[in-house]
């Protein structure tokens, strides 16, 4: 951070004197500056673009369908003859899968993080961390295959009456996919806790376990929470695993062994069919996209804010 500021301040005065000396390269410098600025500002336009199209199509959607129908109805059947536009089944499906995923990712991720940060020897860390990262890098269609054709049949042997498409199996697999995010961000937070805090706790006679859970984990709490929230946001936005293995049947249920549909999977379902622009079905995917975008956006902001807070305390 400090070096950052240095590099920005010193050159300014130097560049000024050069500008006075050479006229030709001055224009070139300005042109390059402008081009780089354009690259930088493209990200703002991307955000504006996303917001723009979502708002535009969503407004059109709500001109035909009232808020009350969207948030008051409990059925979601825009693709059927008798159309209902209640978002709750999709929201409920999304939350169910997310809850299952986090029930897997949070405890295991936290255990891994504490172990890697506080217990593991450096060479163990060096081997295990990349292995966990591989899990985050596997394409989600491959996870979908695994959920549908390996985990579901396995679970069907254990849980009688489990449907071929269900929320449980993609939820578990998604949890495994998210685990590296939770564990690596939590571990970074714990690793950044100053050694002096640990030494203080040891000096008072704590065991390693007490140091880990009573000193390091509370000290890194906002960083750990940030990783958890980011994990939730990823789970909500995850698409292919649920599109493949959860069943594409919007259903208001908390039963994990029934088929459900998430918001993301609905967008896939409509996109796969032949839905012409301008129809109400076409507009629904943007309305659903809007709900999806807003919920992940809020979670991402909270997560960033918590990480910032953690950094403020210790660096």
């Amino acid at each position, binding site marked *: 951070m400090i070096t*950052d500021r240095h*590099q*920005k301040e*010193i050159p300014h005065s*130097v*560049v000024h004197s*050069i500008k006075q000396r050479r006229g030709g390269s001055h224009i070139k*410098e300005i042109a*390059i*500056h402008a081009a*780089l*600025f*354009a690259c*930088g500002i*493209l*990200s703002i336009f*991307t955000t504006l673009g*996303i917001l723009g*199209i*979502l708002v535009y*199509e969503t407004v059109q959607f709500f001109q035909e369908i009232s808020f009350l129908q969207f948030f008051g109805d409990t059925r979601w059947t825009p693709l059927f003859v008798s159309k209902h536009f209640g978002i709750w089944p999709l929201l409920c499906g999304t939350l169910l899968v997310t809850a299952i995923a986090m029930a897997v990712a949070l405890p*295991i991720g936290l*255990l891994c993080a504490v*172990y890697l940060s506080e*217990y593991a020897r450096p060479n163990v860390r060096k081997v295990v961390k990349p292995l966990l990262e591989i*899990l985050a890098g*596997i*394409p*989600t*269609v*491959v996870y*979908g*295959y*695994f959920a549908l*054709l*390996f985990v579901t049949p396995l679970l069907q042997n254990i849980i009688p009456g489990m449907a071929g498409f269900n929320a449980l199996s993609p939820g578990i697999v998604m949890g*495994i996919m998210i685990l590296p995010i939770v564990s690596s961000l939590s571990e970074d937070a714990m690793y950044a806790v100053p050694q002096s805090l640990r030494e203080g706790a040891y000096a008072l*006679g704590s*065991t390693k*376990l007490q140091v*880990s*859970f*009573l000193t390091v984990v509370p000290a890194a709490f906002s960083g750990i929470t940030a990783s958890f929230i980011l994990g939730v946001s*990823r789970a909500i*936005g995850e*698409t*292919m695993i649920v*599109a*493949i293995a959860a069943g594409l049947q919007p259903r208001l249920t908390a039963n994990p062994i029934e088929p459900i549909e998430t918001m993301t999977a609905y*967008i896939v379902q409509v*996109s*796969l069919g032949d839905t012409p*622009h301008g129809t109400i079905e076409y507009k629904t*995917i943007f309305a659903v*996209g809007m709900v*999806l975008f807003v919920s*992940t*956006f809020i979670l*991402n902001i909270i997560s*960033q804010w918590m990480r910032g807070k953690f950094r403020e305390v210790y660096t």
Partner: protein
Amino acid sequence: MVTETKEPPLQHTCPHGKKPGRRWNNIIFQAVAITALVATVSVLILLLVDISIDGIPRLNWTFLSHYPSRKPEMAGILSALVGSGCLVFLTGLIAFPIGVGAAIYLEEYAGNNWFSKIIEVNIANLAGVPSIIYGLLGLEVFVRIMHMDRSLLAGACTLALLVLPMIIIASREAMRTVPVSIREASFAVGATRWETIRYHVLPLAFPGILTGTILALSRAIGEAAPLIPIGALTYVAFLPDSPLAPFTALPIQIFNWISRPQKGFADNAAAGSIVLLVVLLLMNAGAIWLRNRYQKKLH
């Protein structure tokens, strides 16, 4: 929370005989944590083994050199593989210069003001937007407004927007590792700001930038979600001859095969997954190799 009740608070432990539970708790925790780690890694192994068992029998030259077909044993991934290759190439072509440009702007030009803060926060947020939302953006902006239709170019533009935040973040990190003293030395001998960046900062940061870009592109090649709204086709029996040609991609083809009920197509999906994983492995290995090679040269 739960963890805090695991052990009684430390108050009056006698100086000599430590409570026997203290040591045991430690060992129990380690056992639990190692079990969790081993379980996680074994899921990874299980996944790879499962896919290999289903897919390897289908992996042969016919599979790699044929177009999709109604008969699972005749179907291949030629158009998907070529489509993915073109897609990643175009994505890199678009995203690399823009991403590096944005990173240079943020690291070397932008002052420490509210505007660059906004760009920074914005990029961090874009990195967290679900990929399917990028698909919706691509559908409206590239496919409809810009009339690219359901083409390779529309797909590549969408994926470029998706990977841009990753490339920018990685490039900035790489440029930050270049010491300030090098820039100062360059300014001291009369170089302009751009000359300093072009001849001193970029060459030193390049391995890091390249590694970050390859990793970002390897994410793009595995993505199916943003391509589905764009309208990547699932049955393409030709190779794309221009950036405006319709296309399919490997993850889309795999998704399509998984969605079919016949066992033969499921095996094809597994075989396709193996090919996809091998491509990813090669890209990642390439990124690591490049980084090691250039790092040795420069330092």
